[in-house]
């Protein structure tokens, strides 16, 4: 843009966003410098738009327009709303770590009663000493903006060989309407550890809020990890999350994301195999209605030989919803015996529903087995009629078939209770539909 001061849609100067927030952003002087640089990068690039290849189907300039001012600190009323939301969305028995409007809420968290092998601190604390968590190799504008603006996050570590007795659930609660929250977390899973991490995004009375989250997940050799993300935001919210994952050797990682709310949401995952013999099961569900836009963009980098990745993605799209799946698999020259496959299916519940699917295989090794497949279609009329002829009203017949459809991805979650928890969220989405 060739004007002196970049302006957003509402006429606010882009630089105001940072200037007005800077005093409230934690960190040492070194951190301040990193933030300023990151914001410069963002200011230069602006929000991603359709001419940026990775953002072709999710034009944030058109869909979001501007970044809202940083949320203030939640007051007592907001915190008590947040507590209710945490109760409603907590997974039974999980160790809860709660972020309210982008700031760690110790009083709502179980940080004082952590299962053995789990240690937790906050981004806020870490930034007093080091700016490392704000730097990534990415050149993506939303990730730069996140580095500039991150107010807090969870810095979670599971020690080597630990098998925590309970899953850890990070719950992001939005209480402030028309404001944004920037969080950045780190999750480190030690060698040989066995752990379940859940991340939930929910609203407590707030609407039209914006979430920008980044998670740096590293998984040590021989670990067995289930990572479940549940983006169950308010209907008019925006949620843009970036997740960087490094996977050591002989790891089993079961990764799942479900989007069941939010006007605009995108999860971009960058997963790199750094050790041989690992297996990744990556599964996603998008449940979209009205004019909701949901984007799952995954880059799986087979940088080493002998790893397996399986991606199963299901989208259910009603009304004028728009689902995007971009699945890129890179197989580096050394990565022989790579086995990487992805399958995506979209269920279109209305004539105006839209599904974009962009698989990309970039294979530089010769002894590999890789592939992808995609389908898009409506519910089968013959199945619907069979159910109706047995007494099920239209919506209920549809619901049963939709549950079966998304079940193909949800069934990849191994833990029975967790699977039921996820099915419950999908069922509530179906109830809101009818």
């Amino acid at each position: 843009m060739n004007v002196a001061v970049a302006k957003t849609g509402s006429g606010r100067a882009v630089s105001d966003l940072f200037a007005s927030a800077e005093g409230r952003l934690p960190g040492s002087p070194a951190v301040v410098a990193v933030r300023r640089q990151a914001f410069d990068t963002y200011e230069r690039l602006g929000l991603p738009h359709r001419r940026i290849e990775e953002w072709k189907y999710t034009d944030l300039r058109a869909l979001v327009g501007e970044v809202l001012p940083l949320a203030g600190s939640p007051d007592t009323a907001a915190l008590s709303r947040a507590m209710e939301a945490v109760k409603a969305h907590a997974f039974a028995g999980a160790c809860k770590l709660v972020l309210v409007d982008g700031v760690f809420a110790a009083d709502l968290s179980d940080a004082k009663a952590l299962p053995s092998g789990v240690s937790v601190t906050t981004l806020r604390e870490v930034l007093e000493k080091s700016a490392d968590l704000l730097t990534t190799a990415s050149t993506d504008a939303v990730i730069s903006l996140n580095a500039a603006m991150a107010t807090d996050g969870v810095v979670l570590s599971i020690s080597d060989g630990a098998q925590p007795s309970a899953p850890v659930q990070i719950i992001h609660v939005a209480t402030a309407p028309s404001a944004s929250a920037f969080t950045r977390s780190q999750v480190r899973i030690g060698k040989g550890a066995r752990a379940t991490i859940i991340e939930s995004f929910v609203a407590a009375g707030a609407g039209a809020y914006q979430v920008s989250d980044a998670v740096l997940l590293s998984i040590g050799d021989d670990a067995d990890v289930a990572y479940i993300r549940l983006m169950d935001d308010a209907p008019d919210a925006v949620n843009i999350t970036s997740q960087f994952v490094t996977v050591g050797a002989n790891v089993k990682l079961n990764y799942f994301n479900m989007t069941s709310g939010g006007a605009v949401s995108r999860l971009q995952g960058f997963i790199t195999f750094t050790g041989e013999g690992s297996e990744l099961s990556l599964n996603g569900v998008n449940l979209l209605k009205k004019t909701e836009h949901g984007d799952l963009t995954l880059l799986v980098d087979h940088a080493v030989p002998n790893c397996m990745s399986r991606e199963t993605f299901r989208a259910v799209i009603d009304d004028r919803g728009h689902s995007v799946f971009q699945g890129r698999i890179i197989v580096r020259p050394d990565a022989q015996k790579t086995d990487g496959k992805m399958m995506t299916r979209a269920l279109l519940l209305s004539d105006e529903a839209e599904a974009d699917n962009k698989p990309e295989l970039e294979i530089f090794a010769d002894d590999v087995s890789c592939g992808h497949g995609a389908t898009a279609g409506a519910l089968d009329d013959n199945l619907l009629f069979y159910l109706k002829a047995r007494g099920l009203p239209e919506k209920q017949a549809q619901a049963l078939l939709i549950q079966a459809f998304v079940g193909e991805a949800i069934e990849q979650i191994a833990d029975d209770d967790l699977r039921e928890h996820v099915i419950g969220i999908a069922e509530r989405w179906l109830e809101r539909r009818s």
Partner: protein
Amino acid sequence: MALLEVKDLKVRVEEREILHGLSLTVNEGEVHAIMGPNGSGKSTLSHVIAGKPGYEVTDGQILFKGEDLLEMDPEERAAKGVFLAFQYPVEIPGVATMTFLRTALNAQRKARGESEYSTPDFLKKVREVSKSLNIPQDMLKRGVNVGFSGGEKKRNEVLQMALFEPALCILDEMDSGLDIDALRIAADGVNALRTPKRAMVVITHYQRLLNYIIPDFVHVMSRGRVVKSGDKQLALELEESGYAQFEEAA
């Protein structure tokens, strides 16, 4: 009042008339057999009674307990007691048979203003009926009809009939694809459901099924019409002489 009254029914599929003024009256407790060669419109009739989309009724009427059936959605017809055992039951992957049975039964009960079945009562009932039909419990955990043999699919239809307790059962070619043992099990299941109130319409190409399910009336269908009606004797005559005579009459 008759339970089911089909009057001068004319039905089109994709601009082509398939039923050309068909009439049929079924009273409570009666078992009617409809026999006819392939393509005579038997499945079309059963689909129109059940409310399958894609059929255009251009003339005539279907009354069920005096009410206009054609005005009702398929699920409403089911709740009122119309049950069609399909010639080709569909497979529904991912929907466990047990979940399907309970959801369907409770949807029907809800539509009738009845209370939902309690889980123990429901399970007890399913277990009883499936046992008598030789349906292993393990089958009920699988997706509806997924991986079922032809005989198992038909038995699953009879199982639903027993659970839903409809007033009118229409069995479309229940015998197709079944060997004699499978046929006997399914037919025994159907016979166990005969009551002085419940009516049945048994559609078949062959007389064989009628050795097991003995009808009160037999109708011969040809080219979209009922061309002859009689008692079970008519089925035996057909077995001797075949459908050719009626093809000409139609």
